[in-house]
Structure formats: structure tokens, C-alpha cells
């Protein structure tokens, strides 16, 4: 496992933009009966999700999330030095979506823009990228976007996927501050041998889109999808998630000699309550220190950690000093851990998308 320590960069604000439309898992037509849906809810902890209307992209949600956050921070658009956009549901195959957002938001032409097509480990990886850039002290202000419109790139007729994933865009505002005394500490891992655990087989260059790839196929009862829809092999993801993230967190904690008792919050990727509870118990962290917004928002991939911070701990994070751990894990398979401190955030915004 690789480790990284970054100094002089602090989190100053957070925002999340969620679609106003709520999709309840109870009542989804893909389930054969009520007992099936109740079992899924009991084992995943996910009751409902926010879903965009077709035609609305992750970058549309992001645009409003950034506008709201900049206003609250009293940051002018032309003061942003870097924009990193973590998302797999990009606006176009090319170019990068952060370029589209640079123009739409009126950011400077010398704003450093980059897309990272990562999933559930994306907030941790994105934080390491943006904080590294800012730590040199030349670029001062940066925005990390973690956004996803899962409802648009997965089959609505696949019961192994449809109840689990929601849409959201989040923004984490970072700033260089040479007086900031709390380093961000990271560790990372990847196991590409598990690339088929969560993947989209068609639509890239290995398997281009063909007429066959856009035909719906019944894989098994309740699982109908196209080649271009994302596949989630639940058992393989589960095997990975109950083993690797807790072990890597344990190694991380040992490496940096972190006292788990001193941690105020453990923000886990909001994957599935069953998985997250196992990770929490293996680390012996009490329940009240592990915030969850999963029941109302589902799995929002890279957005899930900042979304949990905004939804569950908005008031707390605007007051006092908080010693936090974050752990993202999933598609890749990839995982990352981060130890960070939050002090008196200037802005925490939860905004419902305005059509």
C-alpha cells in the first residue's frame, strides 16, 4: 500500500446538489413481491434515492453546487485556480467535462482543469490530487467535484442495480494555507484483477457500441440490461468490500499511528449498510461516529463521502475542530483512505437542483 502526506492545505467548504425527485425502492416494478423489496432494503439499508430527470447531467448538478458554494464562501469565480471533476457519467466522450464547466462557470482560462473517471474511491483519490497541486502554494484555491448520475448509465430493469444507486453532485473547496498545521494523510490501493466486478462492457474502444450492444437482454429474471449498461456483480463486490477496506484501514491507522479513539468521525463510502457496518465493527468504531445518509440517497459513488458530511454533519463541521477518517472503495477495484482535520468550515450547503 502506498502512503502520502500533504501539508498546508485545508478544507474550507462543502456543498451538495441533489435532484428534487425521489424514487422509493418500495413500489419499484422490478421486484416480484413486497417481501423481496423488504429483504433488499433490510440488507442494503437503502430505502430511496434522488434521481435526475432525463437530460440533466452530473455537470448540471455540479454547476448549481459550485454556484451556491462560491456565494457562501464569498469566492469570486475568477479566484479559482484548479477544478478537478471526479465522475464516470461525463457529458461527452470528449472533451473533459471540467473544461465545459470552466467556461460555464466563468473560471479563468489558466484554471487547472482535470477529469478523473473514478467511482467509489474517487473522493479520496481526488482529494490527494487537488491537495497535492495546492500544497506547492502557487495555486491557492481549488474545487474538487465528485458527481454522478447513476440513473442515466445503468439499466432501470436490473434489480441488482436499480435499488442501490442515486444521483448527486458534491463540491469540496480546498485552500492553500501555510499556517494550517494538520497534514492530510493518505493511503491507496488497487486490484485490477477485479475489473469485472463492476464494469461497463460496451461503449469504450475495446468493445465499441454496436446495434447488438444496445439491445436489452434478460440475464435472469429481474435482470434486464444492455451491453452499454453498468454491471454490478454483487457477490464479488461484497467479497472484496468486507475484506480489503477494513484491512487497509487497519494498516493505515497503524502506519500513521492514529488512535481510533481520538477520531470524531469515520466517513465511509456509503455503499451498503451491511458492508459498512462490518467495516465499522472490524475497526471497533462506535456507531454514532459513522454517519449515514444511505437510506435516503443510496450509493452515489464518489459523491457519497462528501454527501454524508453535508447531509449528516453540516452544523457540527461549521463549529470546532474535527478529527476525521475517510475510506472510499469500489470499482477498479480501487480503495483509498484519508485522515484529515476539519475546523470551522466557512460554508456547508445542501441544495436541491432547480430545473
Amino acid at each position, binding site marked *: 500500500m502506498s502512503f502520502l502526506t500533504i501539508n498546508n492545505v485545508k478544507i474550507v467548504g462543502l456543498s451538495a446538489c441533489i435532484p428534487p425527485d425521489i424514487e422509493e425502492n418500495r413500489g419499484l416494478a422490478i421486484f416480484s413481491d413486497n417481501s423481496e423489496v423488504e429483504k433488499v432494503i433490510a440488507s442494503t439499508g437503502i430505502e430511496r434515492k434522488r434521481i435526475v430527470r432525463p437530460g440533466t447531467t452530473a455537470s448540471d448538478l455540479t454547476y448549481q453546487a459550485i454556484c451556491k458554494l462560491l456565494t457562501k464562501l464569498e469566492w469570486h469565480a475568477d479566484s479559482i485556480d484548479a477544478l478537478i471533476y471526479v465522475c464516470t457519467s461525463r457529458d461527452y466522450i470528449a472533451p473533459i467535462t471540467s473544461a465545459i464547466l470552466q467556461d460555464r462557470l466563468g473560471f479563468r482560462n489558466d484554471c487547472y482543469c482535470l477529469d478523473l473517471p473514478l467511482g467509489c474511491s474517487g473522493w479520496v483519490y481526488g482529494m490527494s490530487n487537488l491537495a497535492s497541486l495546492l500544497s506547492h502554494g502557487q495555486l491557492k484555491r481549488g474545487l474538487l467535484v465528485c458527481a454522478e448520475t447513476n440513473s442515466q448509465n445503468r439499466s432501470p430493469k436490473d434489480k441488482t442495480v436499480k435499488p442501490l444507486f442515486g444521483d448527486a453532485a458534491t463540491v469540496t473547496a480546498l485552500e492553500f494555507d501555510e499556517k494550517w498545521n494538520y497534514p492530510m494523510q493518505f493511503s491507496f490501493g488497487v486490484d485490477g484483477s477485479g475489473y469485472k466486478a463492476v464494469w461497463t462492457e460496451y461503449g469504450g474502444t475495446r468493445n465499441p457500441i454496436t446495434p447488438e450492444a444496445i439491445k436489452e437482454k434478460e440475464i435472469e429474471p429481474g435482470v434486464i440490461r444492455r451491453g452499454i449498461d453498468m454491471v454490478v456483480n454483487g457477490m464479488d463486490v461484497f*467479497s472484496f468490500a468486507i475484506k480489503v477496506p477494513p484491512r487497509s484501514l487497519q494498516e493505515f491507522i497503524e502506519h500513521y499511528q492514529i488512535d481510533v479513539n481520538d477520531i470524531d468521525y469515520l466517513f465511509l463510502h456509503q455503499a451498503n449498510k451491511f458492508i459498512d457496518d462490518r467495516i465499522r465493527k472490524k475497526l471497533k468504531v462506535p456507531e454514532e461516529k459513522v454517519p449515514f445518509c444511505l437510506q435516503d440517497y443510496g450509493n452515489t459513488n464518489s459523491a457519497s463521502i462528501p454527501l454524508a458530511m453535508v447531509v449528516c454533519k453540516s452544523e457540527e463541521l461549521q463549529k470546532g475542530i474535527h478529527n476525521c477518517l475517510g475510506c472510499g472503495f469500489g470499482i477498479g477495484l480501487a480503495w483509498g483512505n484519508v485522515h484529515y482535520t476539519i475546523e470551522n468550515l466557512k460554508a456547508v450547503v445542501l441544495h436541491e437542483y432547480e430545473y
Partner: protein
Amino acid sequence: MKTIDEFVELFGELFDDIDTSNFTPETNFRDNDEWSSLIALSVIAMVDDEFDVTLVGNDIKNATTIADIYNCIVAKSE
């Protein structure tokens, strides 16, 4: 290491709705009304807890009887 009979008992405890008292190592675990992918996940979790062995999707998919899964655990613990 737990015996196969102990494993059959642990396996049966993962079912809520059906009577599992007649489960034996030779029971076809799919051949009942309750087996689902969610129970498959709880099998993986139970095996992780009780045997410290990680089963993957194919280990379950390729198995027919409870003994097949037990044998897979034995092979993986060696």
C-alpha cells in the same frame, strides 16, 4: 476448523423462512423457496467470520450442495 456438520448448521441459520433442520451436507442449497442472492451474501459474510476465508461469486455459483461450499473453504484454507 469447524466440522462439516457445524458448517451445515451455520448455513441453515442464514435462512429465516424455511425449515432447515433437514439440511445435510448433500442438500442442494438452491432447491428451496428462500435461496436468493442476498443469502449468498450472508454465506460469504459468515464464512469470512467463522473461517477467515473469502469466497467469491464463482465459488458460490459453481457449488450445488452445501458440502461443495465447505470443500471450497477447506481448499482455500490450505
